[in-house]
Every structure is written in structure tokens, then in C-alpha cells.
């Protein structure tokens, strides 16, 4: 009878565990759709789902990462809306979530990379604070690279950071091009496990497109935008913003 009880427990865990996986997959998809369609509510709903999943499985490290990822996307939205209070709270929560994620799984490279990206937002808001947060951001991305040198999101985040950093500070367009191209190449060969983060492929090409567009290389820019849409046809940022602007140029 004891064996039967254990068996039942295992089966229940499997059924429930399967549920958690589905919730993670759906919420992951939802935040991506929300971001690309610039829909705050969808992003918040995805965040709420992740929050409800906390403490229900042994994957809190991943769930915390996703909450922070939602915060990251919501920060972008809040910056665009010029909602400073929201920016502050999402960034603060994002850092807290990532800290807790890394408490559980210190070697989780994607979390280190996201920390670096969030410092990037702090610097973007107050440029002189680069002197303070720049080294912290560099350290986080260096840790991420050390843990997973071939993670495409790390190269993407580093590439976006280089795009916004002056050349004399280790950034610049050439450096950004190199990193974003590397990211795209790594994404091409990336086979992520379903629950783990897989965002960024389409974005890498969007950023490459922006880079070429700034250099007035319209043809290459368009190729990258189209590639971004080929990877993710739902990328509204490219479809409704970047590409139309390019056509008007």
C-alpha cells in the first residue's frame, strides 16, 4: 500500500508539474506577444501568472527570472511612456527577482545577462551614472559569458549595450555589429529546452537593422528587418515601427 501511495504521489506531481510547464510556456509566449504588440496588460498578465507559480515547484529560479524578464520589458514600456515612477519600481523589482534567482542558482548565465541589461537602463536614464553602473554591468555580463560563452542572448545584450556606449568606453557601432552578428549566428544554432528562455533571435536582427539604417545602408537594414519578421512574424516593433520608418526614408 505504501508503494501505491508513493506511486500516486509521483503521478500527482507529474500531472501538476505538467501544468506548471504549460503555464510557464504560455506566460512566456504572452509576455513576448505583449511586448511586440506594445500591450502593457498582456505583459502584466504574464507577470501575474509567473508570480502565481512561485513556490509551486522546484523551478522558482526560472520563474523569478521570468518575472524579472517581464519587469525588463515593462521598464522599456514605462520609459517610452515617460512614466518615471513605473520605471523605478520595475527596475527595483527586477533586480530583487534576479538576486533571488541567483541565490538559488548562482550559475544561471541568463540571469547575469539580464542584470547587465537592467544596469544598461539605469545608465540610459542618467548617462553620468555610467561611471557607477558601467563596471557593474560589465561585471555581470562578464560573469554570464564565463558561464555560457555561447548563449546568444548574452551576445545580444552585450551588442545592444555596445550600440549605446561610446567607442572610447568600449562600445561603438563596429563592436555592436560584431556582437549582434555573433548573437544571430548563435541563435541560428540554438536549440533551447522548451521552458528555458528563447527570446531575442528576432530582436538581434531588428538591432542589426537599426544599426545599418543609421549608416544609411537601407538595403541591408531592410534585409535584417525582414529576417526579424521571418523569425517572428508577430514582431510588431519591426512590422509597425521600424520597417514603415525605413520605407519613408
Amino acid at each position, binding site marked *: 500500500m505504501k508503494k501505491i501511495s508513493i506511486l500516486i504521489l509521483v503521478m500527482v506531481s507529474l500531472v501538476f508539474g505538467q501544468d506548471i510547464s504549460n503555464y510557464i510556456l504560455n506566460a512566456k509566449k504572452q509576455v513576448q506577444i505583449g511586448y511586440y504588440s506594445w500591450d502593457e496588460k498582456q505583459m502584466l498578465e504574464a507577470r501575474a501568472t509567473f508570480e502565481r507559480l512561485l513556490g509551486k515547484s522546484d523551478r522558482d529560479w526560472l520563474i523569478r527570472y521570468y518575472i524579472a524578464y517581464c519587469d525588463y520589458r515593462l521598464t522599456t514600456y514605462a520609459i517610452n511612456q515617460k512614466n518615471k515612477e513605473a520605471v523605478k519600481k520595475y527596475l527595483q523589482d527586477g533586480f530583487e527577482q534576479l538576486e533571488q534567482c541567483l541565490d538559488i542558482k548562482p550559475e544561471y548565465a541568463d540571469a547575469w545577462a539580464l542584470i547587465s541589461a537592467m544596469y544598461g537602463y539605469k545608465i540610459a536614464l542618467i548617462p553620468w551614472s555610467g561611471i557607477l553602473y558601467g563596471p557593474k554591468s560589465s561585471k555581470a555580463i*562578464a560573469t554570464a559569458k564565463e558561464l555560457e560563452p555561447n548563449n546568444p542572448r548574452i551576445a545580444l545584450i552585450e551588442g545592444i549595450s555596445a550600440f549605446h556606449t561610446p567607442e572610447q568606453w568600449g562600445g561603438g557601432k563596429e563592436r555592436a555589429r560584431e556582437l549582434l552578428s555573433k548573437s544571430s549566428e548563435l541563435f541560428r544554432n540554438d536549440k533551447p529546452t522548451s521552458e528555458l528562455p528563447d527570446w531575442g533571435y528576432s530582436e538581434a536582427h531588428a538591432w542589426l537593422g537599426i544599426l545599418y539604417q543609421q549608416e544609411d545602408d537601407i538595403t541591408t537594414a531592410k534585409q535584417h528587418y525582414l529576417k526579424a519578421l521571418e523569425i517572428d512574424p508577430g514582431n510588431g516593433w519591426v512590422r509597425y515601427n521600424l520597417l514603415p520608418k525605413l520605407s519613408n526614408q
Partner: protein
Amino acid sequence: MMIQIRNKISILIILIVILLSQITAETPEVKITGYVRGNHQAPLAYVNIFFTDGIEGGMSDESGYFELHSKRFGQRIIRISHIGYEQLEIPLLLERNKPIALAIELKKTFVKLDAVTVSASSFTATDGEGHTLNRLDVVTTAGAAADVFRVILTLPGVNTVDEGAGMFVRGGDVSENLIILDGATLAHPYRYESDQGGYFGMISPFLLSGTYFSSGAFSAKYGNALSAVLAMETLGMPEQPSTDIGVGLAAVSFGGNYPLKPNRLGLRFSGNYSNTTPLFQLNGGTDKFDKFPVSWDANISLTYRPDARTNLKLFNYFARENLGVYYNSPTFSGNLSSGNDQWLTNLVVNRMIGERTSLRSSLSINYYRQKLLLGNLIIDNSERLNKLRSDLSMTISRRMKINTGLEIILSELENAGTYPEDANDLRPEAPAIRYDNNYFQIQTGLYIESEWDISARLFTITGLRTDNQDFKSDPIIDPRFSLGYRLTETQIVKFATGRFHQFNQGRVVDPNYGNPALPSMQAVHYVAGYELKSGLTNLRIESYYKEYSRLPLDSLMAGDERYTGKGHGFAYGADFFLKANYNLISGWTSYSYLVSKRKTLNYPELVATDYDIRHNFTIALKVNIMTNNSIGFTYHYTSGKPYTPGLGRWNAERLPAIRRLDLSYSYYTYIHESNFLVFYAAIANLLDRRNIYGYYYSPDFSQRTELRSTYGRNLYFGISLSIK
């Protein structure tokens, strides 16, 4: 056997069917509806409402309305969560056909700031948000020469009485501050020490991870001193290897930070050699010195983390300095030569005990040797201060923390020399009193305090401290209390009070010439203030009143009776501080108003103290140009300090006001990605103003000479490179 297996399988199948039917069967449900509101009853949208024992949940809409459905009955808990608001849990009894309607009000979570926010008059200098100044502010403030003490002089309530770094805080003497480094007391925290403090602080900002400065009414854990506390923390485990090289007009430095075993064992070291000869040769003033100021210091620290909960740090520091300067007074024109040695060894152990308690202990030895020769004033003193300090911090709940701790300080003093009978007569042949004594003191201290967030708006720190010297029968008991009330998310009003004691030191308690039985000096502080902290803007306005008693008073009688504890006094004033940042321009300004009077030592009546500086104004600005260029300006105005112009006319007149403008420029860039290069140049005293810092009088006050600025306008420059 087969039948048994078949039975078991049948039972298993039945159980699974029951279980699955429980999960999937359509059952009646109970509906929970409600509205979520925030501050001022405003509806809150996108609030997450969910059952803690499941995944079902919902979100509120634009009107704050939400709807939940539960197919399970009985006791369940819903959690209401929204970023920026306090999370709420509500237990519900769910019964069939009994819908529930809720009206929920969420309270905003104010960003939990550390304890120092609650205490009045406190400033912090640490990287990160929520601190008054960051390390870059400390390093780039014009005129501060990358010196922590000199930056503190730009804060309100802190007066400067000469060109040095001596801190005279809210009407208190420079000796009335407690300076702590990683728990170790620094009895001589200045470089080129004088009775006005010293020229620089002993510890470089590049060694520090955090600095806390309180100009009054500080909490019990920091210790006992009449005026202020400066608590510094040195850097911990290095995270990545780096080598630092600095070359300046009058100094060279070299240092390194190396993780020997990542996150387990780390080494930091640095050394500085300073020779001011080129500085004076370039800027003039070589005629003022017999021996140019020369100093060197070195430090090395090892950090070891045997496990995730324990951290050990062994910090060692050594410094030596020498100078010979020409001194000109009506009674003596000649050379003042001095040389000081200092070393500090401090072992600090931090350990987490369980999830909510942390223990921190430090064992330090601080040795100081001073030699000075000036006419008939001869000093050859040495002091060894051994200290054990232990602090326990227990988090009782989300809202309450208890701190408790003890300290034991053993001081060995060996003093020898002569001092003039008349302080104004320094002639080598003039009458002088010889002293030669060795003595030993034991000080003990014990404290307990609670940090209690009574509500989201109201914070308090309540503490009690007791100190004793040489196991005397009258232990000191000092209550301390501070309260902060948050008016809005960005505005706080504060009140703090406390009783503070300080044991007398030096000649007044010398067993041969003073009164060892003197009681400890006492001050009672009252501080009330307002603070606005919004983003990078920080505004503070504070007023204070301090009452002194049991101060040493010279009765002019011989022997033990010479000094009594009947001195008294008071100080009151107001401080203003504003720090702001507009991307390209950042900086702060401070203004202090002060009245300070005492009847103490050889002042037989209540008169303005030597450091009763009525108005003190500072503005420190930094302009960032093209990301990696920065120009800084610092302007100081200090109204004249009192001086005694004749016999019996105690501090009856005032010196002219001190004005000074300093300028600095720095250019920083990365070389090969991560190597950081800084070029800096500074012009101190840009207006070439020769301020008067005092007068030397002849014994009968018939003649006087001026003590003026050592420097006119002077240029300093250098580079520093950090290789990673």
C-alpha cells in the same frame, strides 16, 4: 500472488480515477468579487489576485474590479500583489452558493531604506542608490583632494577652522568625534596631526566600500562621543583582478586587488609615497619648510570566506610621516619638526547564524607614535589601543530588528616631554612643565537598540548604552531615541534625541598634573529635521540644540583640585543641504548657522568657543562634458572664528571670514575595453586668497603674528590607471 498484484493494480486504478475525477469533474463553484483601491481610494488596475494554494487567479480591471472562481470549498487564502504596494493575504471561508464580495485597500510600500534614514543628521557615502554621496562624489569633489574627511567638510554642520581636514561638528571640538574603521576605533585618524585635527584623513576613499557620518544624535550602536561619528567600512572580497597605478605631482601609488580563489580568498594591497617637494617648487612656498612634508603608507588585507555564511577579513595598515616647517610667533621663530608613525591591525569576522541573525566581531590593535619639537614644547608620546568589539543583529520580524553588542578597549599610554607654562611663550628657555608618565585605561561599553517600523510611515530606533572607564562605580547610562515619519513617499520628518558621554583624555586626567577622577563629559542632543529625497534630489533642513555639562574646568588650583567637572555650555543652530542632478550638472550646497558657548578649561566664563563659526556655506558643483570629462568647482565661505585679543577678553573678537575657491578637472576613459585611465588636474585656492586662520600672541598680548594660508594658488595634476 497474481491475485494480490491484480488487487493492488485495481486499487491503484480506482485511486487514480478518483483523483483525476476530483481534478477534472465539474463541481459547483464559489465566486469572489471585489474592488482593489490604493491611496486616496483610487482604483488600482492590474493587481494580481490569486489563491496561495493553487494557480487560479485574476487581475483587477481599470476600475479596480476583479472576479475569482473557486471550485474548492473550505478555508483558502487569497494573495493580493501589486508592484509598489504591500502584499496582502486574506483568509476566506468558501462555502457552496455563498459568493463573497471584498473591498481591498492596498498600502504603498515605501522603498525600505536602511536604518540610517531614520536617524537624523546622518550622511552616507557608498555606491548605489539611497546614499547621500557616492564614491565618485568623494573622489571628484574639487578641493577635497580625494579625501573622505575633506568631503565631509562640505556637508552642513561641519566647520573648518583652518586649511586642514579637522572636523568641528555643530559646536564641538575636533576631539569630540568618534572615528571607526571596520569596528576599530581610530584614536588618531588624521595625517600630519595637529590640535586642529590634521591635514588629511588617514584612510583613502579607495580603500572604502562605505562611509556613514552622523553630525549628532546617532544611535547607541555607534558608541559614545560628544559630537559626531564617522564609521567607515573597508572593501571586502575582490571580485576581479585589477592593478592600480597612480602618479601625481607629489605622490606615487601602486595597488592590487586579486581574487586568489574566486569568492573564497582575496587579496588587496596598496602603497603610497608622497613627497611634496615638487608641489612647492612648482607653486612656491619652499621658504616655509625646513623639511618638506614626506609620508608613506601601505596596507594589505586578506579576505577569506570559508563558507557562504562566514567572512573573515584581516586588514593591516602602516603610515609614517615627517615634516619641518618654519614657525613664526612673537616669542619664537624657528623650526617645528614632527614625525608620526601609525599602524593598525584589525581582524573582522562576520557570520550569519540561522536566517535572521548576524554576528560581527572585530579585534584591533592601533599603535600611534608622535614626536614633535617646537621651542619649549616637546612631545614624545605613544599610544596603543587594543579593542574587541562584537555586534549581534537579529531580525525579529519584517518590521523589527534588534541590535546588541559590547566593546572593550584597553589603552596603554606612554607620554614624555615638556609643555610651556604659558601657552603663548614658546621660547626654548621659557619655563616649561616636564611630564613623563605611563598609564593604562580600560573602557567597556554595552548597548542594545531596536529598529522598529511601527507602520509603513513611522520608524523608530530606541536604544540604551552604558560605558565605563577603569571600572568606576558610576557607570554611564545613555538613552537614545530617533523617530522618522514619512509624510509622502519622498518626504520625511525626523526627530532624534540622546545623551552622550565622552571620557576625558590627555593632560586634564594625567595622574601627575591633572585629575584622574574627572567625570566623563556629557552632552544631550535634540535634533528635528525635514528631508526630501526624490530621485537624485536630496533636500535636508535640520535644527538642533545641544547642552553640555561635566566639562573639565581649570580651577587654577594645584594638584588634583586643578580640574573639576563643573564646566558647561550649549550649542544650537540649523543646517541646510541640497543635492541635485541635472545630467550635465550635479552637486550640492550646504549652509550652517551655529552658536556655541562653553565655560571650560581655562575659560572662566561662558564664552563663544574657539570654533563658534556663525555661518558656513559651501557649494560643490560638477559639470560633465561629453561623457568622460568633468570639471568641478567648490566654494567655501566661513565666517570668522573667535579669538582672544587681550588678557581677560576671552574670544571677544573674530577673525576675518575665510573664502576659498577650488577647481578640478578630470578626464576618464577606458583603454583596451576594461583598463580605466583617469587624468586629473586641480587648482586649489584659485583666487589666491591668503586667509587668516589665527594669531600668535606674546604672553602680554602686546605683539602678534598672523597664521595665514600655507598655500596660495597651487596646481596639482596626475594620472591613475586601473588595469583589469
